[in-house]
């Protein structure tokens, strides 16, 4: 384990069993890795200075009980970035262990906390090996179909990419493949400001949602056209989320996966020309439709 210090910051959600699980995971983590520093969210939130110096020079693992993400916010308010963000609701779904009805955890939930703690430690170890594997991708010139609807300009690469009807693409390169969003989807999202990546090593099935990207208008998920395992994420998107808007098929790639069985996935996907047809009608028909809905919602 790399030498620099690691901090663990659970949320303090006492009113929900999900929050109590978050706390339990933190305690289990410290049991397994005593060298980790446990940060008390209440003291941190009170503006007390004890942790400031330590936080500046450590990797911070935040553990959120629900999507309000109080621990993440506590860290981001200090202009810091969590090294790892653990979301208990997603993990309880992943291991399909229902949060207990009452606030004192049943053994199922305690077992879940142990599994998550082990997961985090295993993930930390292999995250370090995979971290340096994210080579910058050099993208060659390629040809595009394009169309303008009102003042919006949409492109679709002619070859090498495959698409699902959720407007995401997959670019197979031998045993691995890149995933990203189409020009159409980046336009629907408008200026993307935040990206949330899945964990490296996570197994994904075709059409699973794989991370999300957020603009002032909406939060959208990348719905994977292929199945496999996450082996890399595009770290450049954190300081430059606008790459997804400006260059969605190249510099704006989102994650890389190791492919399970692309031949099978391929059956349910469209190639460039097919997707261009699909997107053309959708852009024209849906734009009219969405304009109406949006205007009704604002009135």
């Amino acid at each position, binding site marked *: 384990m790399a030498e620099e210090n690691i901090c663990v910051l659970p949320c303090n959600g006492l009113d929900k069993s999900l929050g109590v699980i978050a706390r339990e995971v933190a305690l289990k983590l410290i049991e397994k890795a005593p060298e980790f520093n446990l940060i008390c969210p209440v003291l941190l939130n009170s503006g007390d200075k004890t942790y400031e110096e330590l936080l500046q020079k450590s990797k911070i693992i935040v553990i959120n009980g629900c999507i309000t993400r109080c621990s*993440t*916010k506590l860290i*981001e*308010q200090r*202009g810091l970035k969590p090294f790892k963000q653990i979301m208990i609701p997603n993990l309880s779904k992943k291991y399909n262990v229902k949060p207990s009805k009452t606030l004192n955890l049943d053994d199922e939930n305690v077992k879940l906390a142990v599994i998550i703690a082990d997961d985090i430690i295993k993930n930390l170890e292999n995250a370090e090996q995979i971290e340096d594997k994210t080579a910058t991708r050099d993208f060659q010139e390629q040809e595009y179909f394009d169309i303008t609807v009102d003042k919006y300009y949409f492109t679709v690469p002619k070859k090498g990419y495959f698409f699902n009807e959720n407007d995401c693409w997959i670019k197979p390169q031998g045993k691995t493949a890149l995933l990203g969003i189409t020009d159409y989807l980046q336009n629907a999202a*408008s*200026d993307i*400001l*935040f990206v949330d990546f899945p964990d490296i090593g996570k197994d994904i099935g075709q059409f699973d949602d794989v991370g999300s990207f*957020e603009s*002032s*208008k909406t939060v959208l998920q990348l719905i994977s056209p292929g199945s496999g395992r996450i082996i890399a994420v595009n770290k450049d998107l954190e300081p430059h*989320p*606008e790459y997804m*808007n*400006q260059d969605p098929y190249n510099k704006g790639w989102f994650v890389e996966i190791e492919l399970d069985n692309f031949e099978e996935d391929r059956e349910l996907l469209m190639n460039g020309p097919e997707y261009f047809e699909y997107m053309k009608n959708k852009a024209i028909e849906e734009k009219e439709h969405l304009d109406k809905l949006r205007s009704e919602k604002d009135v």
Partner: protein
Amino acid sequence: MSEQKVYIVPCSGIGKVFGSIGRETTYIVVNELERGKAKLECLPLIIKGKKEIIEQLKENKVIVIDGCPLKCSYNNVMEQVGKVDAQFMTTDIVKENREFKPESAIIPIGENTKVLSQKLAERVSKKVHELLENTEEVND
């Protein structure tokens, strides 16, 4: 030499809320934080090539505030005036304060949009001081 001023040129975008953050930030700096030292200038006039405004900017300090990666204010002031003393992006302040995600409303702007504009205004106001301080050294 007449007392130096700092001219602030927001990008005047009206398609997205990021333009409004730039405008609101400029109002706060010019009307409150740096009253008398900072003045607002109008980008469309600069793009149109209004001589007297471009001369004015050349003789004083210029700060541009852009609302999206296309940087219309930065690019056009560089083209017409030839220099920019400091540049800000409203999307930076948005990214640093994820819990104050701006509402997409433009007229009137939402609460979070105001909070972000205040935060950015404080940062711009510090830059106004810096720019005016080293002009004093130059004059002595």
